[in-house]
């Protein structure tokens, strides 16, 4: 939004516009195909015909510039963490991150002895929704995406935030 973001006082016009924007953003959060490990299989299953993420307006995009949501699906190694950060920075605002599975959330099974695994992707990028599971079933991921949609809908992009 840039120029218009948080620039207006709260009134009925701005609120209606905010709701419209929230609705538009939340019903088409295109996600960034970002499979790092076995969670990617479940993410693919969610996008495929049986679970069909297209129902909630989600289309997988291969470029960070076209995506709104980054689903970090899998183990983030420290070598990859620098790339994850770079890819997140390449996404256009507004951008959201879903941490899928226990590896991306906390390091998972590599928590104690994995020198090469990042202990949670939230150490490098801000995470909006955590989806637990190892790996989470497509239903769990869809639950997480619906939670994210709720979060986006509740946002007030135009309204000035009073201190």
């Amino acid at each position, binding site marked *: 939004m840039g120029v218009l973001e948080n620039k207006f006082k709260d009134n009925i016009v701005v609120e209606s516009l905010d709701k419209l924007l929230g609705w538009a953003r939340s019903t088409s959060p295109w996600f960034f195909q970002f499979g790092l490990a076995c969670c990617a299989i479940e993410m693919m299953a969610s996008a495929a015909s049986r679970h069909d993420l297209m129902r909630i307006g989600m289309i997988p995009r291969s470029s960070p510039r076209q995506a709104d949501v980054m689903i970090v699906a899998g183990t983030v190694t*420290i*070598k990859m*963490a*620098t790339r994850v950060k770079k890819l997140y920075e390449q996404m256009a605002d507004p951008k959201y991150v879903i941490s899928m599975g226990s590896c991306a959330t906390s*390091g998972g099974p590599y*928590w*104690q*002895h*994995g*020198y*090469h*695994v*990042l*202990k949670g992707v939230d*150490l*490098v990028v801000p995470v909006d929704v955590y989806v637990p599971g190892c790996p989470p079933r497509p239903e769990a991921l869809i639950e997480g995406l619906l939670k994210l949609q709720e979060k986006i809908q509740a946002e007030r992009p135009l309204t000035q935030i009073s201190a």
Partner: protein
Amino acid sequence: MTFEEIKSAITAKFSDAVLENPEGEENAIYLDSRSWSKIALFLVSDKDLFFNQLECLTGMDLGSETSLEVRYNFHSMEHRHKVEIRLTVDRKDPKIPSVEQIWRMADWFEREAYDMYGIVFEGHRDMTRILCPDDWEGWPLRKDYEVQDTYHGIVVPKIKEGWE
């Protein structure tokens, strides 16, 4: 050929390079790494041995006191026999000759052994890390490995004690 025949064939040609086996390790040939490149050429070119396939190359750390070790598993598709060769490498100055140009299979295996144990294979045409980032510090699978504190500003986790 049986294991004994293979061993005697190598001993006949390179008698001073074949070392004595440690106790309990009867099914491998221990060699002196200084003459390894000659013996490797002999293994692949001799008609009776003809080990034309390198099945596996493993780096090992047998503990802080002892040296590092490299193990080669060879197989001959022609004669259908196999053998395991073991070379000990000095921990302070870990260098052994590369067999990458003899068996192309060794290319990535040697890079992995270099990545994890710091064993330098002399003569390898691309002796760089294969799994860890190029600017990673230390050799992760060594027993005395200590994790670096940060990597490009990212905190590298230490072993967490008492977490359940």
